[in-house]
């Protein structure tokens, strides 16, 4: 499964537990308006750590944090790429 598919599926699982209407998951959707409050985003980050083996927020330091869903997915995709690069043997 792609990083994007894992992120979308985890968000859907968390949203299933709350009985409310949610906006569709588009790239420009602001994460805090996606029906996930900060606790739900924290849970999402933990479940993604279990599913993908990475938590880019622990590395996160200087730059602006992701605000939209598209930025959030790219944040994870970039972290996944750099962790693959890191684990490759030096040539």
């Amino acid at each position: 499964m792609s990083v994007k598919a894992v992120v979308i599926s985890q968000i859907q699982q968390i949203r299933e537990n709350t009985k409310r209407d949610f906006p569709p998951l588009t790239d420009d959707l602001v994460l805090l308006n996606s029906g996930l409050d900060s606790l739900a985003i924290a849970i999402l980050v933990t479940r993604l750590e279990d599913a993908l083996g990475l938590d880019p927020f622990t590395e996160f330091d200087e730059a602006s944090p992701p605000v939209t869903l598209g930025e959030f997915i790219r944040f994870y995709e970039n972290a996944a790429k750099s962790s693959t690069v890191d684990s490759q043997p030096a040539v």
Partner: protein
Amino acid sequence: MRMLPNRLPSIRNRLCNASGSRNRFLRNAAATVSMGDLVRGTSLGGRLPELSGRSVLLTTRDQLAAALALIELDGVASRLIICPPDLPLEHLPSLMARGAVDAIVSDQGPGGPLQVICNLDILPAREEPAEFHLTEWVLLTSGTTGAPKMLIHDVRTLTAAIDSSQNQETDVVWGTFYDIRRFGGLQILLRAALGRGSLVLSSPGESVGDYLLRLGALGVTHISGTPSHWRRALMSPQAHAIAPRCIRLSGEIADQAILNSLRSFYPQAAIAHAFASTEAGVAFEVNDGLEGFPASVVGTPGEVAIKIKDDSLRIRSARTALRYVDGGDEALADKEGFIDTGDIVELRGDRYYFLGRRNGVINVGGLKVYPEEVEAVINRHPAVQIAVVRSRRNSITGSLVSADVVLKGGSDTSSANTQIADFKREILQICQASLAAHKVPATIRCVPMLELAAAGKLARHRA
């Protein structure tokens, strides 16, 4: 000026004597109240004298209504029990009995013994109470059993840290992501009222983004919150709406990542993280932009005495809570007057760093969770043999609740995966039905057995 019996002025007296109160305000999304009106007026419909000497339960939907009532009632009520916004209703009867409540102040409908409505309309006060009391301010925090602990402060313990740090800035506008009915937010209300500032509060149901926009429009200069509040604010597109001069973090471990993020996001702001808790009061503030605190803080004589014993941070000062309302089965302080914060620290070089909590208490975004309370709820599921609840590190809220569960009959491997998934879902449903959202486990694992520590207790710390 009328004085309290020990010759301390009440919060309202001090507001009365401060200059420029006409231009200072408290406001939420819907209303603005001038502090000048507040010192001459009443938010209680003129019924303040009826509340003289009473033990008052303050329960409001709107935190601004609570703020106005608190300022009016200090020095008048004998005791003020401040209900936080998410207090489960089932706790009210026992809180009223434990606190010997004989009056309720609320912004909602009638009920209870003597009910006084507080609201945002300030009427001229015709009659002032004749007697003055050193009001007990009762703040609620989580307890192991789920029943809130009731901690007593008074105007001296609550304002000691403010009095000694008071500066003369006159154009301060405070904002806080805390609710003023919790210790962290109450400190900001008192700083605004007793300093020379104003305060902008969030309204019930207002989103972080909308609150940030209002803070920006009103030119907020000082903002406080937990590291989790700040991580959430930085994820909001409206984070750019504010340009504070001072940023304050407390209530949780402030790690280097959030301190660095704030510094790069708000380069103009002075950033301080403070150690404070409902029990220990405001202890100290760190201003060098680094996580942890300098070792020189420990053992230095001053208003706040700090020592490390058995790896945990202990604090003695005139700012700590005085006692529990009902004594409780635990003493608040040791024989020398030190309060054990339960926060484990480690000395590396010339700095102490926070490692976590001693008794397994989990700090989810500044809110305490006792593992025992969650374990008791999980154990209600008939298939559960035993459960252990631990803290799991989280880069958004600092920590989250995680549960390891042993199913009856050692059925973890023999049970079908679908059945385990069903059990997990049912356990989650039980937790969601009886626990506040931050106490519900974020992850549940079914494991064959649990590790026991040497004394035969469940091992809560994961290596």
